């Protein structure tokens, strides 16, 4: 088991280094440079040159890469090209903001959707199953901005509750105040992840249900509920945990549309702003953080799968 985990960690590290190289080269290929973008329409050759020198953009590429990677390992993401503020400062707040929303969404969305999905697997082909399938497939098809607009129209403009933008500070709020504050973004995101989780948990459980040992249990007369909860679910945990982890990673890194729509100062808005200002250092730092989030979450999912399923620990 430990050797398996170490191997996974090793693969994770290689992924991180590979991604770091791609991120670095990618940001360098983009046209324009930070000095120019920073000065915008007001740039003259003289003040652009002065700015470039100040930011160290005149050094060779590989030196820029190596020093950046080394600083990253030490936890120093450098200073924002655009504003000269340490990137860690910029990210810290926003990471917290993003975590608020994703944790709340996960805490509400994940258990509800898993329960709905497993219930659908208990009664495949029933009216409940068919309605749920229809609704979740429709939700997958609806883009986030559509769902968000619909929710804002219904709740903010028709019913007069909730916020159309979520910029205000979350500090000093209790759990229920937080949920109320973030209600619309959480609802939008829950719809997005719910549909996938419902479909996947239903499919995973049904997949196990068609295997011979379940048939055996049915023939022995074990009640259906007991078969699913006691026998099938444990074997289905692997794929379900993976989907949950992917969705959590999505909640941290991929919620650009929702954050921009609600004007919410999280990580995704930050990377959009970073791209707009050509803040290479910021984009690089965020890219690495996103990559680490993915690698770590997938690692946890793998470990959970190993722990729940002895057969994965002893591959033939």
């Amino acid at each position, binding site marked *: 088991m430990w050797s398996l985990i170490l191997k996974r960690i090793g693969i994770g590290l290689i992924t991180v280094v590979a991604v770091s190289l791609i991120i670095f080269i990618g940001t360098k290929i983009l046209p324009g440079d930070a000095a120019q973008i920073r000065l915008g329409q007001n740039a003259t050759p003289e*003040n652009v040159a002065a700015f470039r020198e100040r930011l160290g953009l005149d050094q060779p590429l590989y030196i820029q890469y190596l020093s950046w990677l080394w600083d990253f390992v030490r936890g120093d993401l450098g200073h924002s090209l655009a*504003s000269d503020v340490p990137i860690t400062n910029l990210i810290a707040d926003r990471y917290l903001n993003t975590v608020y929303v994703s944790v709340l969404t996960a805490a509400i969305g994940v258990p509800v959707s898993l329960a709905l999905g497993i219930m659908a697997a208990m009664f495949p082909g029933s009216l409940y199953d068919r309605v749920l399938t229809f609704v979740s497939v429709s939700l997958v098809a609806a883009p986030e901005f559509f769902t968000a607009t619909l929710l804002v129209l219904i709740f903010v403009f028709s019913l007069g509750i909730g916020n159309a*933008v979520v910029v205000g500070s979350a500090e000093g709020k209790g759990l229920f105040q937080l949920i109320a504050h973030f209600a619309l973004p959480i609802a939008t995101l829950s719809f997005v992840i719910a549909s996938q989780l419902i479909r996947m948990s239903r499919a995973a459980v049904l997949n196990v249900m068609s295997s011979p040992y379940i048939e055996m249990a049915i023939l022995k007369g074990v009640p259906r509920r007991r078969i699913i909860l006691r026998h099938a679910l444990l074997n289905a945990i692997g794929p379900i945990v993976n989907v949950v982890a992917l969705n959590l990673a999505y909640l941290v890194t991929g919620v650009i549309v929702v954050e921009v729509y609600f004007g919410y100062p999280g990580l995704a*808005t930050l990377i959009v702003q*970073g791209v707009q200002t050509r803040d290479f250092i910021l984009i690089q730092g965020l890219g690495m953080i996103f990559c680490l989030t993915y690698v770590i979450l997938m690692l946890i999912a793998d470990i959970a799968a190993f722990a729940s399923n002895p057969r994965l620990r002893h591959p033939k």
Partner: protein
Amino acid sequence: MKRNDPKFGQLGYSDSEILNHMVKRGASRRQVMGWMMAAGATATAAGTVFGTASEAWANTPKRGGKLIFAGDQHGPNDTLDPALFTSAVDYFRGRMFYGSLTRLTDSLGYEPELAEEVLSNDNATVWTFKLRKGVEWHDGKSFTADDVIYSMNRHMGADSVSNASSLVSMIDAWEKVNDHEVRAVLSSPNADLPIALGTFHFKILQDGTTDFSTAVGTGPYRVKEFKPGVRAVGVPFENYWGEGGYLDELEHYGIGDSVSRLNAFLAGDVDAMANLPPKAIDQVTGTAGRDVWSLKAGAYINIAPRLDMGGNNSSNAHVWKAMQLLQDRERLVRGVLKGQGSLGNDQPINAAYFDYCADLPQRELDPEKAKWHWDQTDIGSTAVPVVAAEVAPGAVEQCLFMQREAQKVGINFDVKKVTTDGYWGAVWLVEPIAVASWNMRPTANIMMTLAFAPSAAWNETRWENEQFEQLLVEVRGVTDPDQRRQMYCDLQTMIHEENGQALPAHRNYVDAVADHVGGLTHVPLNNFGGAEAPVSIYRKDA
């Protein structure tokens, strides 16, 4: 009195100045209406204007309450360093926390702020600023001449990273006379210097400031919270020297997406929003308690061909003359800007400027004449590329309208739409024909110096005219009004006739504000009343 409010378009620059003073001194309704009707206004118009003007003066600001103002783009490059300000969000925040030597008025004159008195010698080459005494910084220190010298020197010299250094490039040195007096010595006359110093970037910092994670200023609010790209929150500074800073809390941030910004404003999450999309104007005026906050301004959009490209000069001239004649200006202003703008006349100075020349005939859509010009070149039906980006409302449409009119007479333009990201660095001033969007500048001279003088870094068409540049420098020292007017008319005529860019429309700054916000300003240089509003805004229902 909303002096730059398009609703009162019938009043000229000087008229509104007079009216303002009359009402301020307590003139009666009868007196004002009599004066206005003598000036040619109808009775109803005069009544409305008096109503608004007196309402504005009758309302004394109330203290207390909180307001949230939402700008548009913000991000990690938000800064508290005035020299590096680039966005409207920066300008607004700067006004919350800092003060400047002079403050611009709605009619683009200036009034003293940290400088109590501004004096110049006869030919405007030496300016003396007598500084206000008893002004306190947010950290309790006293404001002195050293602070001014330090702040001003940051805009001087070739290695300055200031975004506004070109406005003060004629200053040779700043000298300290004593603790409460400084002097600027100029290499060439500049009668408009105190106006330039009232603009966004010349906010006064404490001597030796290098850390901009917070702001220690002399402004009406001090920093409670500042996070780049998240928000800025100000609370009143108890020892502010002047009148203003009425709110318990003033919060400012950007909402980049215009639909979200509008939603937030209509839902009441924010009290004012910048850059109302023209399409939403009717929606806002139709909503109770919400109104449009518009400034009649000299901002403009244009299409600039590079005269230094594309072969021989006589052929070039026919191309750009055709482009100017293919502009459907009426339609752009009515259809795209929804009336929140005015017709452009292929030169940058419009009625919002003091030195506007009204004698210039308006250039109009004339495809036949354009066709004649086109036939003098050997381009024929070959498509001419025009690069456009959505840098302002109408920037892309002006090209599309031109393309459509051109097609009717067999002229082909290939309009390439690119993203706004990186536009100013990679496309603007590089491509042979590209669009741009310009903010208004405080004076005609500054505008022309920045973008039309042959030596200007932003001379978009690379137009070269020695006579223009000489006149532009000469007029800065002219004090005789008639001579000055004539010279500015000549300058505007030269651009109109020879510069080569098509400038089809000037656009207003169009924001929206809730009715419970009082103390709005109307300085037509930027959003939110020229970013001057933070000092005077208050809650009427506080």
